[in-house]
C-alpha cells in the first residue's frame, strides 16, 4: 500500500529516503567527474572514507540515539576529550596504546551511560542532558591541558601511516576498516537483535513500546552508551588522523553527525531510518568538501553553506514523506 512507483518498479516507502540520498551522492559524483579532471576515480571516494572515518563512527552512534527519538550533543566534546586523554597518557606517563585505547573507550561509554541513565531516570529532555555533557567533556579537556599535545607513540604513528593496498592502485587506511566493521556490526544489531528492534519500537512510540512490555528504559540507556562508545572510538580514530590531542579538536562535530544522519533519511522524531543512509549521508558531506577543494578558489566555508542548504531540503523531504505515509 505504501509503495511508490518509480518508473516501472515499485520501492517500499521506507527505502525511499535512502534511495534519494544514494541518488544525490551518485549525481554529485558524476557532476564532479564532468567538471574536474581526475575527480572520477575510485580513490576520490576512498579518500572521502579515509578523511571521514571518525565522523562515520560517531554518526553510527548518533543514528542509534536519533532512532529512539533522542539526540546526543555531547559527541564532539567526547571525541576531543578522548584525543586529549589518549595523547596526555601516552606523552606524560608513557602508557602503552593497548592500555590507553581500552581506557578511553571505557570513559566514553561511561559518560554515555551516565547521560542515558539521567535521561531515563529523571525523564529529562536528551537535548539538555547531552548539552550539559557537551560542556562537561569540553571543559575536562582543558583541565588536562590547554595546548595541543602531540602523539609520538610508535604504534600510533605506524598505524597512522599504514596504507592497506587494494586492487589497481587504490588504498585505504586502517581507520576505514575499523569504521566499516563498526557500521556492519551496528547494522546487524539494529536489524537482527532484540536491542535493535527495541530501538525502532521506542522511536516509533515510547508509550506503546512500554505497554508492549519492551525494556524502554534499558534501550534508552543503551543507545546513549553506544553513542558514547562510538564517540570515544571516533576520538581514537581522530588521534590516528591528527596525531595529536587537543581541546579544540572536533568542535561542532555533533552537528556534522546529526546532519549526516538526517541527510541519510533518518527521521528526527525517531523510529525510521537505516544505517546505510547514515553512511551515504557521511559520504555526501565528505564529497561536498572534496568538490570545494577541487574548485580551489572557494573558501572552505562554502562547505557549511552547502550542508545548510542540503539540510533544509532534506528536512522538507522528511515532512513530505511522513505527511504522505500518515494519510
Amino acid at each position, binding site marked *: 500500500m505504501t509503495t511508490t512507483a518509480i518508473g516501472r518498479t515499485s520501492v517500499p516507502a521506507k527505502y525511499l529516503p535512502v534511495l534519494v540520498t544514494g541518488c544525490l551522492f551518485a549525481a554529485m559524483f558524476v557532476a564532479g567527474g564532468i567538471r574536474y579532471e581526475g575527480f572520477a576515480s575510485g580513490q576520490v571516494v576512498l579518500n572521502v572514507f579515509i578523511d571521514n572515518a571518525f565522523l562515520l563512527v560517531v554518526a553510527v552512534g548518533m543514528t542509534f540515539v536519533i532512532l529512539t527519538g533522542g539526540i546526543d550533543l555531547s559527541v564532539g566534546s567526547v571525541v576531543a576529550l578522548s584525543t586529549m586523554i589518549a595523547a596526555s597518557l601516552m606523552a606524560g606517563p608513557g602508557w602503552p596504546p593497548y592500555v590507553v585505547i581500552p581506557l578511553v573507550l571505557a570513559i566514553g561509554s561511561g559518560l554515555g551511560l551516565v547521560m542515558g541513565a539521567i535521561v531515563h531516570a529523571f525523564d529529562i529532555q536528551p537535548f539538555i542532558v547531552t548539552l550539559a555533557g557537551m560542556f562537561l567533556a569540553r571543559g575536562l579537556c582543558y583541565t588536562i591541558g590547554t595546548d595541543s599535545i602531540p602523539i609520538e607513540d610508535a604504534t600510533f604513528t605506524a598505524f597512522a601511516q599504514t596504507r592497506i593496498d587494494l586492487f589497481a592502485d587504490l588504498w585505504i587506511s586502517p581507520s576505514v576498516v575499523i569504521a566499516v566493521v563498526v557500521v556492519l556490526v551496528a547494522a546487524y544489531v539494529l536489524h537482527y*537483535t*532484540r536491542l535493535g528492534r527495541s530501538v525502532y*519500537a521506542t522511536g516509533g512510540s515510547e508509550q506503546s513500546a512500554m505497554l508492549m512490555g519492551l525494556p524502554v528504559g534499558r534501550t534508552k540507556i543503551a543507545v546513549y552508551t553506544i553513542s558514547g562508545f562510538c564517540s570515544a572510538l571516533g576520538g581514537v580514530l581522530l588521534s590516528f588522523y591528527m596525531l595529536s590531542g587537543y581541546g579544540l579538536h572536533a568542535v561542532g562535530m555533533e552537528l556534522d553527525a546529526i546532519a549526516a544522519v538526517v541527510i541519510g533519511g533518518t527521521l528526527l522524531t525517531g523510529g525510521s531510518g537505516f544505517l546505510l543512509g547514515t553512511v551515504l549521508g557521511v559520504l555526501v558531506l565528505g564529497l561536498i568538501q572534496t568538490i570545494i577543494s577541487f574548485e580551489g578558489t572557494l573558501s572552505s566555508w562554502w562547505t557549511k553553506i552547502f550542508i545548510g542548504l542540503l539540510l533544509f531540503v532534506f528536512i522538507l523531504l522528511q515532512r513530505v514523506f511522513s505527511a504522505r505515509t500518515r494519510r
Partner: protein
Amino acid sequence: MAVPAPVLTMSGIGKQFPGVKALDGVDLRLSPGEVHALMGENGAGKSTLIKVLTGVYPADTGTIELDGAAVAFGSPLEARQAGISTVYQEVNLCTNLSVAENVLIGREPRRLGRIDWKRMRARAAELLSRLELSLDVSAPLSSYSLAIQQMVAIARALDVDARVLILDEPTSSLDAGEVEQLFMVMRRLKEEGIAILFVSHFLDQIYEISDRMTILRNGRLVGEYLTSELSQVQLVAKMIGQELDALERLHGEARVFDRPLIEARELGRAGAIEPFSLTVHEGEVVGLAGLLGSGRTEIARLLFGADHAGTGEIAVGGAPASLRTPRAAMHHRIAFCSENRKADGLIPDLTVRENIILALQATRGWTRPVPREQQDELVGRYVKALRISPPNPEHLVRDLSGGNQQKVVLARWLILEPRLLILDEPTRGIDVGAKTEIQRLVAELSDGGVAVLFISAELEEVLRLSHKVEVLRDRRLVAELPNDAELTTDVLMETIASGGRDS
C-alpha cells in the same frame, strides 16, 4: 446455566488517589468461555480496576486470585506472562514497525540471539489466520486501518498463552462492519475457553456479545448480573443511580420565537460551505443534522469567526456585525465548544479551576486578573451545577474522565454567560449519564433565553433537544425543518439522503 469455576477473582479491591477514592470494595470474577462486560459511567472506576488488575497500579486493599492462587502483578508485563493480556482503546502498537514485529516483538523467534525473520513472519501470519485475517505481515502497520490494527493488537495479546483477555473500549473507533468482525473473533476466542472482559459505551454491543456484566458506580460495586436478565433501561438506571425520567421528559418542539439573535445571510466560504442563510433566535435550540463532513462544523466555525466568511453578512441582535476572529465573536457573547476537546479546548496539566477561568480571563485581558475569591465562587457554582466529579476545583483536568472533561469545557464557556452557545458533538464518547446531564443543561439554558446551536451525529439527540433542525448535505444547507410531531429520525434521514429535494 451452570457457572464454571472462575479463572480470575478480584475481591474487595480498593484504590485511593490523592483526593479521590477511585475504587472501594469492588469484586469481579471472570469465567472461562464467557464474555463479561464491565459497565459504569465515565469516572466510575472501570479503567482504574483494569489498571489494578494488569499491574499498572498496585491495589491498596483486596486480593486478586488467578486459578485459586493469590497474585499481585508489578507491571503489565508480569500480568501478561501470567496470561492476562490487555488491548486498550488507543491501539498501543508501533505503527512504524511491520505487522509481524508488532505481533511478536519482545518474543521474536531467535537463533543464536539472531532474530529469525522468516520464522517470525510465518508465526505472525499463523496467529493472524486464527483471527481469519490475511495481511502482508512485512508491510508497516501504518498501512492498515485502525480496525485491522486493533485486530493485530488482539493477535499480539493471544500469542502468549492468554487465559484472560481484556478489551478496553476496542470498538469506539470502529465502524459497524469492523465491529462485527471483532465480535466474530471474540466469539471464536470464547469457544476456545478464554475469559474476556469487555468494556464499551455502546449498550447494543454489550447486549449482543456479553453473557454477564459487572456494574460499577462511583468506584463502588453495584452488582453482577446476567445480561439476559437485565433490561437496557434497568442497566442504565443502575449505572447512573437514578431513573430515566429526566431523559424522557426532555423533548424539543417547534415554537415561535420572535427575537432574532443572529442572522446570517448568504454566508459562505469557498471549499468549506455553500452560502447559507440561518436565523437563530433567543432561547432557541437549533440542531444541525448531516453526515460527517457535510459542513456542520464549518457553519459553526464561520459563526464563531474561526474561519473567514467569503460571502454574505451577519447581524447580531439586528445590527450588522463583523465576526472576523473568535475574539470578536466572544465580544458578542458567542461561545464555541469544539468537537475535539483534547486538542482544542483543555489544558490537561492545569487544574479544573484554571481551565474554567481561562476564557473569562482572556476576555478581560491579562492586565486585569480575576480575583481569586471571584474565581472560587464562579468555579464552585459551575462544578456543582454541572456535577463535575470529583467536585474538587484544584484537581488536574488530566485525571478527569472524558465526560467530566467535557463538562469543564462547557463550564468555561458558560461562565461568560453567552447569548449563543455552539456545541459541536458535545456528547460524543461520553457515557449515558453525562450525556443526559449535558442534554438537560441545554434545555435549561434555552429556557433561560440562551440560543444554542447543537451539532450531533445522533439524530435522536438532535430531535430530542432542538426547536428546529437544519439539514446539511455535501456542504450545503438543504432544508430547515421545524421540530413538530411529524418530524422523526426517519424523516430526517430521508431528508439527508434525498438532499431535501422532495420536501
